[in-house]
């Protein structure tokens, strides 16, 4: 066991981890069950979380490498009572059926909208290309991301209907 300091959903945490623990294991043991266990091979996207703002497969990331990192799970974005606009868009556009893939998709959407305020449909497809969904056929989820862009822009006080703009990313 070794000590690990990192931030999860904005809160500083001191953890004890084994060298082989994946971030997926660590987060689920802490009760972040929005992080789903799927293929465990970096393919299906259900375990995706944000690490320093970037979507990463938590199933192939060793927790011990994340000293000082900032991790965001879907729980960090909103709750059923106070959903994030991205969650709201997924619900309104019926982008959720069984829901297993959705936390990962919501987080990849968050990263996309940080980088591109008004993504094109092609950019949305690229941003979701790591996420397998066996229910919906993706059409409604792509619509959900486009709607999320509208909602987020309005929440942030941004102007709608503009061209794609890229923000600085690290």
């Amino acid at each position, binding site marked *: 066991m*070794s000590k690990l300091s990192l931030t999860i959903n904005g809160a500083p945490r001191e953890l004890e981890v084994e060298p082989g623990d994946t971030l997926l294991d660590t987060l689920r043991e802490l009760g972040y069950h929005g992080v789903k266990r799927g293929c465990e091979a970096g393919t299906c*996207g259900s375990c995706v979380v944000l690490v320093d703002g*970037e979507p990463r*497969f938590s199933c192939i990331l*060793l927790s011990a490498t994340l000293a000082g990192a900032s991790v965001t799970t879907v729980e960090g974005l909103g709750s059923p009572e106070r959903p994030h606009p991205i969650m709201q868009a997924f619900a309104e556009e019926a982008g959720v059926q069984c829901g297993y893939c959705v936390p990962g998709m919501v987080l990849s959407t968050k990263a996309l909208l940080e980088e591109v305020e008004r993504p094109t449909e092609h950019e949305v497809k690229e941003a979701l290309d790591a996420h397998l969904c066996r229910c919906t056929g993706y059409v409604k989820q792509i619509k959900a991301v486009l709607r999320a862009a509208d909602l987020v822009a309005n929440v942030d006080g941004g102007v709608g209907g503009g061209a794609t703009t890229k923000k600085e990313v690290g």
Partner: protein
Amino acid sequence: MPELKALYQPGTLAEAQSLLEEHGERARPLAGGTSLVLSKSAKVEVLVDLSRVGLDRIEDGPGPGELRIGAMVTCSALRRFLAARPPTALSDAAGSVGSRVLQNHVTVGGNCVMVYAWSDLPVVMLALEGTFEIQRRAAAGEDTRRSLAADAFFSGHPTRSLAEGELVVAVNVPGPGSGQGSAHLKFCRNAADQALASASVRVELDQGVVRQARVVVGAVRGLPQLLSETSDSLLGKEPDAQNLSMAADLAGREAKVSADFKASAEYRTQLVTTIVEDTLSLALSRAGGNQ
């Protein structure tokens, strides 16, 4: 990683190399981890994480337009860096490795050293005549560096040709010269699938004639293959549809392909023909705009 006992996060390359030396056979350097973390090998007891040793920079290399890309630069960092420049085989590949999320994990060094049949960057490195900077910590504590051309680096599997204690610290990729264009394409069954065939091509046009060509195919057998006959067949020719089609047919005959449960040898050969023609065509159109 069933037997993993320790993970180190050194802050310098020298420290990382000392740790690897100290733990010898039981230790492995950790880059993006996409192959290593999934490894069920019981031999790996110690991991030395290279993410904090300063190998994550992209700099100008010594040659014109040349880039020196740190071994720990991720595909997404490379994709973003190259986004403002004219497209090349390198930018094509950086943006097509696995999925967008995987590109946040996979490193340039890791993708080349741990080359799988379907890996993209090794194919590009061969086509663009990249070189690898390899560093070794000598017993006396003095570092020695050597540079290895991609042809030599991929003549066998790099994990076997690197000597004990040697680490790839950077790759150098020459910039596109005047009249040159390059492209990388691959064929997958879906957006995030492993390629069934890929091709990287660099061509140079001079007064409407092909002066130089390097045609490399990947994903059809264990390691990427430079197709010398196919490349040479284009020299001195006009890049018209008939010549491209002839080169593509020759590529289908020259490439050695393997069969597996995803594709028969005949099918892969057909894919090689198609993808070489498409990639040549794209590289030539880029070369045309760079004269």
